[in-house]
């Protein structure tokens, strides 16, 4: 009865996974850039480490984020993670406290009941046994939910769940077997020895009453050990690898490491930290509005992890960023896709370096192509101006927005120059979204040159796509403002006199302006100033994509229309008089998708301008806009 042979699978698995974790972490660490290494080292001895511990307990153990989103799902994750954690902690304490020695190998804690079959019949030990049984019951309840979720995902509020590979299936089976086999192993042993608490004791007695418990018990202890060992062995090659990796990710993130523009240890860690929970799938408009079910972030990450050809998946994404907002692990899904889209830009040298140092060899999706060349662009000598207005390519297809902006700026007496009045040069963002940063840089340089030469203090653009790239990828002296921000500034300064429109309107946050650039308040302030602003079911950081996104290269016009129709339906549930957006592309897309009038925020404001009085407009002195007047 004292044979410890059955602990062998567990011990092998445990030591394997411990060694593997150390090796893998070391490799990841070594492959970090110098600055990231430094960040990590500093983080280890500073606040980031404590922050990480807190985050790990909140998210990795308690799963509070999921809990808030879906209590049942949260409970399931919490019971499994936190329950198991407590079981290990209290099991170790139990073994150290009640065992023969005070420092035991892990197997003594895990298989405590085997080594101490009579323990816990009464007194403090009995209370402790009761506590251990309670934890086991807690876990088993979570397990029950997991099994239910597997077979009927809808019950858990999940529309879709991810598909499993065969290693996932074996790992899952062994995971599921761990706790039932522990329950049965402990019960049988307790049944023989009359020990155990409410769960193992009663079940043990019941089983022992009609079964040869002494003979059966070892089988279940073997099963328990085997399940654990199998699970540990398969961990690195299954989706459950995300459990340990997520801890590493949290620490890296808290230390200030971010995704960057090429594959690195960090992207690899993120790839392995994905639990394939599938939240991104049900959030994805491409899935529920356009019926495309195989390109979502979970599949993208899975493809990356398994080194599949995911060129099609990579390209077919709106880049709206909604999945990133809901990802419980906090993976930077947008930047990760952009990195993949940039595959074609890699030179042979960077490729070789990557192959040499990274465990992720992504040759399958490699597409090298001729680089774009814009050498035909002629350098411009722009006129000087305080405010430079860049409408953007798309805005030229919505001339009403340009007319409105001219009216507003004229009314406020803004001295501005219209940079792309006769057609400008693209801002470069569409190229970046297509993974062509190097080419985008050429356009950025061209436009930057014009903007610098103009001496402008403020660069106003009507297009959120341009806005994002101006802010993030241009080096400018001028302050970059989206026209909604600029109008808000004019209102706050008091240079814009506006009437009230007595209209109910709903506001659609364009992806690149809202999630992309964090501009939520200014447009709302402007709209509220001239009309009654309704709220919408999905807004701010969860705002829907209009479907017209330039982020997606391959989506057909028909599918785009489906997404637009669905988004427009959601937005107009409150029967607004107008649907207001702040992006020419959103406007063009929505116009075709809804009966409701669609306007740009500039048009709304222009409609609230008082009828022009000639002498008034002439008298108003031109205002100078400088950094001093702005709050940025």
């Amino acid at each position, binding site marked *: 009865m004292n044979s410890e042979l059955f602990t062998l699978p567990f011990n092998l698995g445990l030591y394997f996974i411990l060694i593997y974790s150390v090796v893998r972490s070391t490799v990841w660490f070594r492959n970090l850039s110098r600055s990231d290494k430094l960040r990590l080292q500093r983080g280890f001895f500073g606040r980031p480490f404590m922050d990480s511990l807190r985050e790990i307990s909140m998210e990795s153990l308690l799963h509070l984020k999921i809990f808030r989103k879906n209590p049942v799902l949260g409970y399931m994750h919490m019971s499994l993670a936190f329950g198991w954690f407590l079981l290990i902690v209290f099991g170790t304490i139990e073994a150290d406290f009640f065992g023969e020695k005070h420092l035991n190998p892990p197997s003594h804690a895990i298989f405590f009941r085997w080594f101490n079959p009579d323990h816990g019949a009464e007194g403090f030990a009995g209370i402790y046994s009761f506590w251990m049984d309670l934890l086991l019951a807690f876990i088993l309840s979570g397990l029950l939910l997991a099994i239910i979720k597997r077979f009927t995902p809808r019950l858990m509020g999940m529309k879709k769940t991810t598909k499993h590979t065969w290693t996932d299936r074996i790992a899952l089976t062994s995971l599921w077997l761990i706790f039932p086999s522990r329950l049965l192993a402990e019960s049988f042993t307790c049944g023989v020895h009359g020990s155990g608490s409410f769960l193992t004791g009663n079940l043990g007695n019941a089983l022992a009453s009609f079964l040869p418990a002494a003979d059966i018990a070892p089988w279940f202890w073997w099963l328990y050990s085997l399940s654990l060992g199998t699970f540990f062995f398969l961990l690195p090659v299954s989706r459950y690898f995300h459990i340990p990796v997520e801890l590493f990710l949290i620490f890296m993130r808290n230390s200030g490491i971010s995704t960057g523009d090429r594959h690195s240890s960090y992207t690899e860690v993120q790839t392995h930290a994905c639990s394939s929970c599938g939240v991104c799938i049900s959030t994805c408009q491409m899935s529920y509005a356009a019926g495309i079910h195989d390109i979502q972030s979970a599949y993208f990450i899975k493809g990356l992890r398994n080194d599949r050809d995911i060129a099609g998946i990579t390209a077919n994404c709106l880049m709206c960023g909604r999945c990133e907002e809901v990802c419980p692990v906090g993976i930077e899904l947008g930047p990760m896709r952009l990195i993949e889209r940039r595959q074609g830009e890699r030179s042979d040298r960077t490729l070789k370096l990557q192959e040499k140092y990274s465990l992720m060899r992504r040759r399958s999706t490699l597409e090298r192509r001729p680089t774009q060349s814009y050498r035909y662009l002629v350098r411009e000598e722009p006129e000087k101006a305080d405010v430079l207005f860049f409408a953007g390519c798309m805005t030229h297809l919505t001339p009403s927005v340009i007319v409105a902006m001219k009216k507003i700026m004229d009314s406020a007496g803004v001295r501005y120059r219209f940079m792309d009045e006769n057609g400008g040069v693209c801002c470069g963002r569409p190229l970046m979204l297509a993974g062509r940063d190097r080419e985008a840089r050429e356009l950025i340089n061209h436009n930057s040159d014009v903007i610098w030469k103009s001496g402008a203090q403020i660069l106003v653009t009507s297009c959120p796509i341009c806005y994002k790239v101006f802010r993030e990828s241009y080096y400018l002296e001028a302050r970059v403002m989206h026209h909604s921000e600029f109008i808000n500034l004019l209102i706050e300064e008091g240079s814009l006199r506006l009437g009230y429109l007595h209209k109910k309107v709903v506001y659609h946050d364009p992806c690149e302006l809202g999630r992309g650039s964090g501009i939520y308040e200014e447009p709302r302030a402007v709209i509220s100033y001239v009309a009654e602003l309704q709220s919408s079911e999905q807004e701010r950081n969860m705002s829907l994509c209009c479907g017209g996104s*330039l982020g997606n290269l391959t989506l057909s016009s028909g599918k785009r229309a489906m997404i637009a129709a669905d988004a427009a339906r959601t937005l107009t549930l409150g029967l607004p008089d107008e649907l207001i957006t702040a992006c020419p592309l959103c406007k063009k897309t929505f116009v075709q998708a809804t009966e409701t009038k669609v306007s740009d925020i500039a048009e709304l404001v222009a409609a609230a301008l008082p009828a022009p009085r000639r002498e008034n407009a002439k008298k108003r002195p031109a205002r100078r806009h400088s950094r001093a007047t702005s709050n940025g």
Partner: protein
Amino acid sequence: MSIAQSNKFGFTINRSRLIDYDSSDRKVREFITLKEPSFRLCFACGGCTATCTAGQHTSFNLRRMNTYIRRGEIEPLREEVKRCMLCGKCLLVCPRGVNTRNVVAAAADAIGKLERNEL
């Protein structure tokens, strides 16, 4: 044509401008049609070219590029395809819903593959 030819006649034989459909290379067309089936739908209205941002600055002409791809004329494509800024205006004006940006992207990919003999 340059008169200063180095042969003894002072002139040479002109190159053909003919699109010889039977000896043209239609692999690029097949690749693009596979990657972007809406490519077939173009009926050469020229709306894309009229609105084109890059076309304001250079000779880029998506309508002509599509024609060349269909005819298997790859040489003019090599330079042409590099000039697009991928801004996507054409996408919004296309009356046939051709996914024009992806046509350009696929054409660039095809040229890349062609140069590596992967097509």
